[in-house]
């Protein structure tokens, strides 16, 4: 065996013990504000501030942006972000709030922006001081993303932007946006260009952000309207007309299939005094032990047992897929497993939450606001929220098209 595939490199293993050490001493503990299930549901500025403090401290400790060069605010390491993620998750830390920034904006800026823009924007992105949002979707451009109507018109060294974005998560807190829009009406794909644009600093001055209410009653995403917003040309990423290509970098990372690993922490339970994590099968098993079904506990019901174990197996298979995809000789197509990630992950979460609320039986009718709701009402809420991610980031039907076409080579469905 010659490959380094087997064990951590010496840099990785040194870094791993550093992370373990730091986390043992610096876990932020329980929040003094109510934290929603995920960053896409953030609406309370105090909750955001608490999470930003966590992201900043993890960034200052070197666990966020580890694999980015030092010049752009990164750690200058090789293949260490995955190590930091594993350790942050093992330490059951809170999640990071700037998820769109780290998962989508950062790699896109890194691969396509000019150097001074990278150095200007990436440090505060990685530290979480600047929250980022993604302005891709429009009323007429959802799955058919290239059907962009927002238009940028050149004006000397500036661009003037007009248009309407929807479902823009975190825009209400965002300092910056990654923006896909049209610069030519002559060509659907080659008429697109890609910019980074300010939001917070120009609200009322070319930008309007209006909250949209989710089916759960939570906020978190918005409409964003541009009226003659003026943006400097240096904030354009890559060539005019190359927007689609740049957007592919964003989408690949959004789906976990890009070259850069996205910083991710998490695992901390949301309900004080319980150990509920709606992405944990152990939580599901605990729930089943405590819920009654047909005169026994749900954990004694053979059908519930079978359904739980199916999910346990799916969760393990995701872990093992991740392990296998790092070894090129063990798959026939380099994108075969990476392109599955978003699809199988979101469907697993949805199915876990669905089973959980069924296990809860009558009590699943209780909202998070009801003191008698089992597990704080987190499971039925998680079930509803799970549709956000089976739809967002390329709906799962579209993901199946992509897998069928790009990996299996089936003809395009359009």
């Amino acid at each position, binding site marked *: 065996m*010659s490959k380094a595939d087997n*064990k951590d490199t010496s840099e990785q293993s040194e870094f791993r013990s550093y992370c373990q050490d730091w986390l043992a001493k610096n876990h932020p503990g329980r929040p003094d504000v109510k934290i929603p299930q995920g960053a896409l549901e953030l609406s309370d500025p105090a909750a955001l501030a608490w999470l930003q403090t966590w992201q900043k401290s993890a960034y200052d400790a070197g666990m966020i942006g580890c694999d980015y060069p030092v010049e752009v605010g990164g750690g200058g390491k090789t293949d260490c972000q995955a190590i930091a993620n594993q350790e942050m998750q093992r330490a059951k830390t809170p999640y990071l709030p700037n998820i769109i920034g780290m998962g989508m904006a950062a790699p896109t800026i890194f691969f396509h922006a000019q150097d001074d823009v990278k150095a200007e924007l990436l440090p505060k992105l990685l530290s979480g001081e600047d929250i980022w949002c993604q302005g891709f979707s429009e009323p007429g451009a959802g799955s058919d993303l290239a059907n962009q109507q927002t238009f940028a018109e050149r004006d000397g060294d500036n661009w003037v932007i007009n248009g309407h974005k929807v479902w823009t998560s975190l825009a209400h807190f965002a300092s910056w946006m990654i923006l896909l829009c049209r610069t030519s009406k002559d060509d659907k794909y080659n008429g697109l260009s890609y910019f980074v644009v300010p939001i917070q600093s120009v609200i009322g001055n070319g930008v309007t952000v209006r909250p949209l209410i989710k089916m759960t009653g939570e906020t978190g995403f918005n409409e964003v309207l541009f009226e003659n917003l003026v943006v400097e040309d240096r904030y354009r990423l890559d060539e005019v007309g190359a927007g689609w290509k740049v957007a592919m970098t964003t989408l690949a990372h959004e789906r976990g299939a890009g070259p850069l690993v996205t910083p991710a922490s998490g695992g901390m339970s949301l309900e004080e005094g319980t150990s509920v994590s709606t992405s944990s099968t152990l939580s599901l*098993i605990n729930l089943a032990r405590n819920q009654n079904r047909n005169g026994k506990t749900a954990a004694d019901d053979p059908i519930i*047992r079978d359904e739980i174990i199916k999910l346990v197996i799916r969760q*393990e298979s995701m872990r093992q897929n991740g392990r296998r995809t790092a070894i090129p000789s063990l798959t026939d197509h380099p994108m075969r497993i990476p392109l*599955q990630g978003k699809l199988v992950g979101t469907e697993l979460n949805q199915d876990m939450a669905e089973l959980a609320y069924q296990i809860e039986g009558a009590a699943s009718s209780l909202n998070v606001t009801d003191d008698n709701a089992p597990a704080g009402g987190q499971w039925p809420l998680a079930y509803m929220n799970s549709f956000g991610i089976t739809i967002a980031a390329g709906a799962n039907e579209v993901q199946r098209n992509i897998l*069928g076409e790009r990996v299996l080579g*089936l*003809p395009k469905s359009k």
Partner: protein
Amino acid sequence: MAEQPKNFGFGEDETMLRDSAQKFFLDNCSADKIHGLVAHDHNVHRSNECLWDKTLWQQIVELGWTAVCVPEAAGGVGMPLVAAVALAEEIGKAAFPSPLLSTYSATFVLNACQSDEATKALGEIAGGKATSLAVTNQQGSWETTDTDVSIDDGKLNGVTYFVQDARKADQFVVSAKHDGEVGLYLIDSNADGVEIIPDNIIDLTRDQAHIRFKNAHAIELAAPGAGDKAINEAMPAILCIVSADMVGAGEWLLQTTVEYAKTRVQFDRPLGFFQAVKHPLVNVMLDIDRAKSLTYNAACAVDTDAENAEKFARMAKSQAGDMAVFSSSRAVQFHGGIGFTWECYVHLFFKRQMHNQVLYGDAKYHRAKLADMLIGVAA
């Protein structure tokens, strides 16, 4: 928990072995050729033949494949289970009729016996002696304490059932009871008092039999009380091997159906244009990848992380079993009328998957076992 190697133990040797197996089956065992060999008689009342290519088997023995998992001390190559799993995957992909997988299963049981006689038998396997397990009773129970064979004064009596590749095997590892305790015994397939009675089975790429013993003289491999334990110890490896066969067969079914969906045109478009065809094929792929990763993980656990081997192997067999059903059902369905014919090769793999799926316990059986391990035995 022992730390498993990230690459599942697929080093250069294991990868080379897999690649040479791929080439071997590509060169020698096209689906066309296998079909010609095992499916020449379509009569539903066909006679019960054992159809396989002994020359190819001889080549496999010369390539040293029977020795892969035999420890070096016993005269083998002593490679990890992932090596055998890689071979099993290629065998499944070719639906290759041979006693190799049965021999691997027997190898792991013999390994667990830890006796001189077992070591000797392992040496014979390395030398090419095809060996199969005879450890199942008439009910088809997978509980390792269940057997309808007894042993007294070194003589086997009774009938053992569902013996795989029985007519290809040179010898059997038999579980038998003495005073209610299970031991393991080695017996030659042509020894006195051994009557092999072939089952009429659906899978054309295998043979199966029940075997009647009448005062048949056998060699003790594991004493009464130690036999079921040896099978239990080997069970994770056995489950991995069957799962790998299903993964390989699943991949053949997927790729063959994808190819058909690209070429067959209806409504002016290739079938694969239609999402009612495309999306289930993607789902088959997801299911195969789950099974494959779980199988590698389980095999690696057998090699490096024994305390988790049973759990991971049951996960693999459960997922692979469900995938086997799904991959074969979609393959027949999406081939349309032609998929329902004897002439189309899909049925070979369909039947192999049906057979694999139940072998050593189906998906629900293993999930029930996992529930006992992970949730606790139900009240």
